[in-house]
């Protein structure tokens, strides 16, 4: 049982101050934009929910949202299981472990704009390794011309870039399981699968929750990589929500609708994260029984 003690606020206060100082002013400014028509630096008209209605009716936004949901679902469905499998396969100690960890972490450290640029060359049929290899194997692969190829390239690039995040989190989580649990399982003669299902998975729930939420949020806001790789094309095949928003905000300089769009965007992410959070908090009865 946790103890009820409001003095814990003292421990939390520095975090609240740090985060709130950067969070509140920009959020309120965006809320402010979203209910006004900004004609000039000193000319603003209150328009109420006008921008929200406008944005909600935008058919292009619906399409971008659909593509986005599909993309994030695919990202989660691949990266979470793959990350767990990698963490289970990683050697626990020794030079092999160090080497594998460093190699695994490398893609994470490359800035998104470089990732996009490298894959731009890497995927080309004439001068890129992956494109040339695929064409050599007889696939008609061309990410600049074919929508499906472009979409899959963005997906594979994201898997390459971000699966290590899940793998590292899960690896650290696995290492934090006391040896006694495994000994008990050995005495009981538990199978590998049973060890995974009843010891490892419940113990990993915390890190997997944060991993899942991070990957959901970041994939849902993916911008730089598809922008650099495909520019959103061919057609609109890889124009995800964030890029459509940026087109609105920067390209057409419609601050009001763009702000309303941002807030709706934010609320969608918030709602989805809350659902994931609640579902995963209540999953895993084995962990609950322990407290």
């Amino acid at each position: 049982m946790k103890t009820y003690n409001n003095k814990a606020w003292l421990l939390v206060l520095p975090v609240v101050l740090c985060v709130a100082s950067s969070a509140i002013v920009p959020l309120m400014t965006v809320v402010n934009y979203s209910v006004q028509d900004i004609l000039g630096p000193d000319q603003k008209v209150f328009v109420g929910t006008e921008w929200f209605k406008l944005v909600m009716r935008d058919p292009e936004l619906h399409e971008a949202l659909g593509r986005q949901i599909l993309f994030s679902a695919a990202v989660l469905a691949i990266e979470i299981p793959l990350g767990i499998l990698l963490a289970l396969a990683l050697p626990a100690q020794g030079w092999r472990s160090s080497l594998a960890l460093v190699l695994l972490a490398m893609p994470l450290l490359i800035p998104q704009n470089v990732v996009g640029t490298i894959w731009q060359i890497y995927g080309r049929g004439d001068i890129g390794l992956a494109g040339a290899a695929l064409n050599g194997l007889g696939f008609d692969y061309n990410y600049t011309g074919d929508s499906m190829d472009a979409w899959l390239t963005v997906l594979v690039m994201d898997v390459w870039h971000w699966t290590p995040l899940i793998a590292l989190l899960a690896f650290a989580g696995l290492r934090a399981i006391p040896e006694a649990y495994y000994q008990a399982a050995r005495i009981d003669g538990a199978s590998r699968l049973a060890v995974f299902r009843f010891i490892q998975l419940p113990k990993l729930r915390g890190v997997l929750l944060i991993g899942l939420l991070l990957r959901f949020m970041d994939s849902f806001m993916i911008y730089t990589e598809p922008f650099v790789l495909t520019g959103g094309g061919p057609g609109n095949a890889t124009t995800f929500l964030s890029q459509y928003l940026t087109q609105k905000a920067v390209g057409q300089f419609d601050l009001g609708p763009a702000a309303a769009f941002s807030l709706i965007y934010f609320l969608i992410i918030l709602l989805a994260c809350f659902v994931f959070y609640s579902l995963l908090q209540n999953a895993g009865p084995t962990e609950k029984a322990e407290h």
Partner: protein
Amino acid sequence: MKKRSFGLILYLIFAILPIYWMVNMSLKTNEEITGALSLWPQHLTFDNFRTILTDPAWYGGYINSLIYVLINTVLSVAVALPAAYAFSRYEFLGDKHLFFWLLTNRMSPPAVFLLPFFQLYSSINLFDTHIAVALAHMLFNVPLAVWILEGFMSGVPREIDETAYIDGYSFPRFFVRIFIPLISAGIGVTAFFCFMFSWVELLLARTLTSVEAKPIVAIMTRTVSAAGMDWGVLAAAGVLTIVPGALVIYFVRNYIAKGFAMGRV
């Protein structure tokens, strides 16, 4: 066992090939990169690296990035440690709401939020300073740190705290001497993630700086010019951006792998 190592090696090859291609590109001239497919440089050149390492505007970017990333990582982990302990051990007014609210700060799409950020940091005269970027990046790193650390702390049995208090440890002494070593895996992985997310973040860092604190990710965009793309220099810059983070993961790997050392209490 064999099958699993095989799978791991296969994945590592998949992971390393694009990076190999980047290294390959960084050692070629632009003509060779865009000219024809070659698995290794036919005319090996170090000019791309020379461009970066001899121009203060280029290598200064790495120094600027390192400064704010290190400030950010240290501050984020330092404020997140006590907070994560509070969330994992106590119930208090609004605890669940506060915990979730923290994470909501990672959920705003940056495009429209950049302008108010610029205005905020300009109004307190922090524009174009390392500290401004470090503080702005805390917005997404502190919640991450609190969440990851809380997960690891909740894995530590509460009996350990109680035993330590009975033995006469004060809270700060218990926290530093006993508790922190127990969750070193969590701290290692948290520090690496704070480093990584701050290191690769482009939009905020670019918006909040102009000359003095301009980060490497922003300087890289100069390889795109009217004359076309300078692929080789960009690839070389990309190779160099991996180096500091790879060093960080190498140094924290022992903490990550050490895990839960119950026997030492």
